[in-house]
């Protein structure tokens, strides 16, 4: 029986790949800093950040959140992000638009995968489709 155990263990790791990926997902889910982070523009032209994942705190710099209007009067925002860490990093971004009273008016729910080399700058542009959309909330998720 003792001879069988290493074989069984080998079978587990070699043949059962879903077990490994399940463990990976479990670990990822249990890791506290694995969380969504937010940057929200404000009516006074500034922006507010909410960092929930400490792995990107100090490693991902938000250089600016520039808000303007299109010629037709729709709000648009450009977020400028820089990877300040020494390693390449993949940031997933999505955003939603809020009305002046804070209601979510539009959403781009899917994550757009954005690989960032060390020191690289990425621009995330968002243009509102509805006139009532006033502020933009950028959602960031580290890989």
């Amino acid at each position, binding site marked *: *029986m003792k001879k*069988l155990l290493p074989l*069984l263990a080998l*079978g*587990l790791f070699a*043949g*059962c790949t*879903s*077990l490994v*990926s*399940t463990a990976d*997902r479990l670990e*990822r889910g249990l890791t506290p800093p694995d969380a969504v982070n937010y940057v929200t523009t404000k009516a006074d032209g500034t922006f507010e950040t909410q960092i929930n994942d400490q792995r990107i705190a100090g490693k991902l710099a938000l250089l600016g959140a520039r808000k303007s209007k*299109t*010629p*037709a009067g*729709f709000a*648009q925002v450009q977020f400028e992000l820089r990877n300040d860490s020494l390693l390449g990093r993949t940031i*997933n971004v*999505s955003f939603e638009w809020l009305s002046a009273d804070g209601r979510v008016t*539009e959403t*781009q*729910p*899917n*994550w*757009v*995968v954005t690989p960032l080399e060390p020191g690289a700058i990425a621009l995330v*542009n*968002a*243009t509102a*489709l*509805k006139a009532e959309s006033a502020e933009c909330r950028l959602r960031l*998720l580290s*890989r």
Partner: protein
Amino acid sequence: MNKLLTLAATAFLLVGCGTPASYKDSNGRDVVVSLEKIDIQDFATAGSTMLQSMVNAPAFQKAGAAPVLQVGNVLNDTGSNFDTSLLLMKITAPLVNAGRVRLLESDPAAVAARKATPGAAVPVAEFVLKGKILEVRSNAGSTRQASYEFQLTLIDVRSSLAVWQDTKIVTKQGSKNSVGF
């Protein structure tokens, strides 16, 4: 005794290894990433990125409050079979729902309805959206890479000129399909 233990261990392996089917957020991070085909999240990424690009096009911004848009052909030039509305709906649905365009239906039923009402004021398309989806594959050893290029063009019907064009390339690399990104 040993046989019993072996049988029990084998049964445990067979029962314990499978992942039971479960519902996932289609926009979440735990969806399947395939190397041999375009996934649902690839259409979403391409569609949302190109929608943002299109609404920023000067010609689109200069158009009236809700220009009439007609969807043209989107050619699937990849090795897999899928409905191109998976891409187009990601672009047209937000525009229509926000009142930014009026979508001119071009299916046979809509054409027949227009012919049946000759006196009615039928809107004429101001813009036509057409495109192509291409696939480029390569591999190095056991690592496979698949790139899908989504190409879209917006044509101003009055001038027949392309007033906006964009491409979005989605590249996936690995030796096998995986779950999550």
